[in-house]
């Protein structure tokens, strides 16, 4: 794993504590990429230093251009976090392209990404660790509270089509009763009506549950036959 740019920069400036410095040196001994970055940091530092000297001598120098020309080479490898996100295609397009380009130039980062892919594949190929008992689902179902009916009632009434139908049916029924002078609202209270919303929705006109003549024998029905 490559070193952070800030660490290398601090190392280049000899600003690290002794123990960290030793770790960095150990890493530099085995990592070409970090050695190159450190070399670039030294180059930039050197350029800045010489520019300062030359400016003092009154020589016209395009400081910014020279500095910028030296900087791209000093850009560090993407962090492990960036490479990890790259392997998940979780970077924005610009960054993704940048990393992709970097991988064609940097063998070390390319290897790291391949290792992440290999790890991902290995984890995805792990066999299932736990198989539930066959009766697990029935145990869950038997343990859930008995709220089914309440929820269903609530949702049926929430259905605007059913609600409108039931209201319209109620108005029609009251209308029929009012048109017929034999029935006053007081009489209606004594009639046992057992028609449900489902009866209206799903029964055919010949269905016995809709045969209002049977449940309200004295009320003449509207003539549907034309």
């Amino acid at each position, binding site marked *: 794993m490559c070193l952070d740019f800030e660490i290398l920069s601090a190392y280049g400036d000899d600003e690290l504590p002794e123990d960290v410095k030793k770790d960095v040196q150990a890493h530099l001994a085995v990592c070409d990429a970090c050695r190159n970055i450190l070399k670039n940091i030294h180059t930039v530092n050197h350029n800045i230093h010489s520019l300062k000297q030359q400016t003092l001598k009154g020589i016209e120098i395009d400081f910014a251009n020279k500095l910028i020309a030296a900087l791209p080479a000093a850009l560090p490898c993407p962090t492990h976090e960036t490479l990890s*996100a790259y392997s998940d295609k979780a970077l924005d397009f610009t960054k993704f392209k940048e990393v992709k380009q970097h991988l064609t130039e940097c063998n070390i980062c390319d290897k790291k990404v391949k290792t992440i892919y290999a790890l991902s594949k290995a*984890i995805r190929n792990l066999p299932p660790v736990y198989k539930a008992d066959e009766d697990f689902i029935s145990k*869950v179902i038997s343990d859930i509270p008995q709220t089914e009916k309440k929820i269903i009632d609530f949702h049926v009434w929430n259905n605007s089509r059913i609600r409108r139908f039931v209201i319209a049916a109620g108005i029609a029924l009251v209308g029929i009763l009012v048109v017929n002078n034999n029935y006053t609202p007081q009489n209606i209270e004594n009639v046992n009506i057992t028609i449900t919303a489902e009866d209206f929705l799903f029964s055919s006109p010949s269905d016995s549950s809709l045969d209002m003549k049977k449940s309200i024998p004295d009320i003449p029905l509207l003539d549907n036959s034309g």
Partner: protein
Amino acid sequence: MKDQNLENLIKLCQAGNRQAFATLVKTYQQLVFNLLYRLVPREWDVEDIAQEVWIKIYQSLNALKNVASFRSWLYRVTVNTYYDRMRQKGLKVEVSLDEPFETEEGEGVRFPLVDQGMLPEEILLEKEWQVYLEKIIQDLPEQYKIVIIMREIDGLSYEEISTALDISLGTVKSRIARAREKLIEDLSKYFQEVKR
């Protein structure tokens, strides 16, 4: 399961259809087990906690507004149920001992010095390595373990993980990276030992 099918199924469950709920459990129970089995101590009853998860899901399914986020929500309930159980048993919810420093993007990846080299893919797929890999996943600090299981085993996106755990995308990114870094580090060491 396709989004439309899931939406229909959840609507039926919300209407109290137990058969539909049984189908939902059957479809997603393995996700819950995958996570719980790796999280909870061996002596705990995984099915008991999973059962509690599903009952909570059933009871609060009506509160789920966005069906597309069902998986994230299922994970959130699973993790929270696990934490509740930890607290009930008087155990502390674990925060990683090697908590990395915070950055603007979230939790920064710790400054690593181990040169891991490359791990050959064909070796990682061998049975012996799978056993070892399973073990080191188990040994990961909890917060890394959760994200790596969600990402690699159950295939959640960074956004889904962020929603499920209520953490920023930057934190998801760095935890996944950190988990991978740790796994690669352990595997590399093991690889070096085996090679000797």
